[in-house]
């Protein structure tokens, strides 16, 4: 069952061993070329922490389950620092076609909560299939022009 990321923002992270609540989902880091959520972010600013996708034991409708607190870690490099600051977020970013046309702003993305695979990028009223994603950076997400 596919899920929209925006609907999952704010979902709590829960430790499977202690049943403790560890934080709430704020961002996702997405590898556009692999079309995959690589890590989830909880908290903001200095309190932000990441959970690598392979440490998520269950992305459920009410909670994101992780083994225990050790699954959360502080940013380890510039890439992860950018991720916790939301700079790698697809949502809110300008979407350009490879023909140089501005298609609007990415408002959401759809992913498979079982695998973290990104399925579509939501741009205005349209959904762009993840297979059309070509690259992403600070200026824009680039997608293959349709037709």
């Amino acid at each position, binding site marked *: 069952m596919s899920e929209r990321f925006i609907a999952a923002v704010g979902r709590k992270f829960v430790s499977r061993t202690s049943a403790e609540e560890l934080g709430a989902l704020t961002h996702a880091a997405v590898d*556009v070329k692999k079309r995959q959520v690589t890590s989830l972010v909880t908290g903001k600013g200095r309190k932000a922490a990441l959970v690598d996708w392979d440490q998520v034991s269950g992305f459920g409708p009410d909670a994101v389950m992780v083994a225990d607190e050790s699954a959360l870690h502080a940013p380890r490099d510039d890439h992860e620092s950018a991720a916790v600051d939301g700079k790698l977020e697809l949502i809110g*970013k300008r979407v*350009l*076609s*490879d*023909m*140089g*046309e*501005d298609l609007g702003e990415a408002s959401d993305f759809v992913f498979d909560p079982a695998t973290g695979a990104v399925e579509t990028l939501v741009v205005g009223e349209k959904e762009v299939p993840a297979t059309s994603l*070509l*690259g*992403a*950076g*600070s*200026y*824009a*997400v*680039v997608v293959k*022009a349709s037709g």
Partner: protein
Amino acid sequence: MRLLVTGSAIRGLPVVTIDGGEDVAEVRDLIYSPEAGRVVGLTLNKRGFLAGRRREVLTAENIHAIGSDAVMVDDEASLMLPAAVSAEVGDPPSGRDVTGNEVLTEQGKRLGKVKDVVVLVGSDGEVVGYEIETESGGTGYIPLPSQLAVSGSALVVPDPTQDFVESDLVGLGAAVDEFRSRLGMP
């Protein structure tokens, strides 16, 4: 129906990498070859207000597409130093600016003066027409054949051009194919 853009609308567009989604430069000016009827390259500025010129140029071969909102390139390596590219782009001959040139038909009718080039959106710099100042002082758009005679002060266009002086880019976009088929062009 073709989407078109004037040269002046291309100046200032961001140059964006497809691979990285980064705006690595912006268009300073077009390097136009009137003989070839196409943009052969672009000169560049750094991004940002008054950020100054970038030494690198972008050859047409390295342009993925000139769009209405951005010029797309594969990656930053597409931007090359003038010494590394053909002289046509790296050190373009002077006197190739067609702006102000008189547009004459083969029969000797004056259609106006060139104001700007009109580029096919999504192409790597194909020029399909000119924006002209018409004899009445207004703005018009004329389609171009792929090759034409240029002298430095005037250019000679086929006679049928006078039937295709359009008042806007949408009209020109619709007229280009008909014009070219009338001339027996592909």
